[in-house]
């Protein structure tokens, strides 16, 4: 296993905002090392001068006229909200106490 493919699982889980159990952390570390080793083969390919493909058929700048259309009502939009009050979604306090 090469040095450069080692993965700092806690750092990446923090980037992804996912809580992992100890068991998952251990299991993923070894599985992801195997997968990254498998990825090594892409490094041998000469990609000089090759344009990247983001979508198979490039469609750029799709414009629509800015015409008002019926959308979801507040009730429909809040249908799945875990907690709501006065047509707004309730979340834990974001601002620190002074």
């Amino acid at each position, binding site marked *: 296993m090469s040095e450069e493919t080692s993965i700092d699982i806690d750092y990446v889980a923090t980037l992804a905002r996912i809580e992992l159990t100890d068991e998952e952390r251990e299991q993923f570390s070894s599985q992801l090392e195997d997968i990254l080793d498998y990825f090594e083969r892409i490094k041998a*390919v000469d990609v000089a001068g090759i344009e990247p493909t983001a979508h198979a058929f490039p469609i750029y700048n799709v414009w629509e006229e800015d015409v008002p259309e019926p959308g979801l009502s507040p009730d429909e939009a809040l249908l799945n909200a875990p907690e709501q009050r006065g047509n707004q979604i309730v979340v834990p306090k974001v601002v620190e106490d002074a």
Partner: protein
Amino acid sequence: MSDLYYQSAAELARLLEKGEISARQLMQSVIDRTHSVEEKIHAFLRFDPDEALVEAEKSDQRRAAGKSLGSLDGIPIGLKDLICVSGQGLTCGSRILENYVSPYDATCAARLKERGAILWGRLNMDEFAMGSSTENSAFQTTCNPWNTECIPGGSSGGSTAAVAAGETIAALGSDTGGSIRQPASLCGVVGLKPSYGLVSRYGLAAFASSLDQIGPITRTVEDSALILQAIAGHDARDSTSFKAHIPDYQAALKAPPRRWKLGLPREYFAEGLDPEIRQAVEKAVDFYKNEGCEIVEISLPHTELALPVYYILAPAEASSNLARYDGVRYTHRSERAEDHVDLYFKSRGEGFGQEVKRRIILGAYVLSSGYYDAYYLRAQKIRTLIRNDFMDAFKKVDALITPVSPTAAFKIGERLDDPLSMYLSDIYTLSINLAGLPAISVPCGFTSKKLPVGVQIIGQPFKEAEMLSIANLYDSTHRFGMEHPEL
């Protein structure tokens, strides 16, 4: 006449049109069949017989009044549980969406409704379509109707198992790296992945947006054409929807057969292909040869890079797409959260299953600072090379013929602890998503253990009509998708 639930959609449409059967009779037959076999198959996450019968009666009334909506009017079609239907649940096979109710219709669902199809039930899947066996569903493991100790393939395994078991006439699935074609092959039914951009993704829960496509799962190629006709076409609500001319696919099937030039990519018949699968696929190739088609061996030199490229790009897109499941606006919200950031960590940690977490972590890693160029950007460049391989091949041939899956259905649990071996199930299908091409899996026989085998026809971009015509040449004379498992 054999049981209605095992007829093709096209045949049922003819019977409905002639008044020989009613939509209610058909729906009741499908409901009875589902009640009798579902405890062995576990294909459905939810279904509502009462509502389906109400819709069937409306269909009969329309037809009686001379106002039939066409050949899909009254045909039951199941949906993979990641396609929105207004007022119905949608889980994506995940705990994080366990109580979610769609506030609107996906475009493909709306188009089926407009044509009178009866949306019959919600079909099981690997969580967020990540998997090749449907074992990653948070709710249940679906069994292969041909051998209930085996997986049905995935991620659209609920859809393909339901069609194979006679629990629906047809279904819609989604295909990001093979998720329609691989389970179709393993369950002995027809599965079509359209060109990227042909079918609107509006209302499809996103996995990897540059690769995802919705497509039909049916018993015959003719049925595949029938349903594709209904769901294909431009939609302003999907910004990657392509403004392509939509030909008459069924008319294309009736056109006189041509002597097609078909390519066999040698990389798809190399090491790793099960000899029984090879034999079945080669027999299908021989059929085309006998029909006067020219068979040409070709090369797609970057094939072995498709798997690593796919497993860099798809998780990268997924890690970004699945950021929306944060416990704030909808989805599961953790009760243990201490502050708003902790809410994200705990809601996602509790709500997502292992494979989804593994892929989000992998995606976040390949996109992270210092690795972006080495993995993500490089993979996007190799994606160009993979697409160029196909485009070069299509200068010489009309379409390609390959296996769909390197093996037949494997045993439940067999590959669960080894993600890389599971990923290899899609080795012949994922290049097609990277290149944005249409492809169809057609049943072409059985192994010695009576497990289905599929052959894949890969078409040129937006030439579904040609691809269907080639596939139908074989299917209309073999009809392996009309053979039934003993249940």
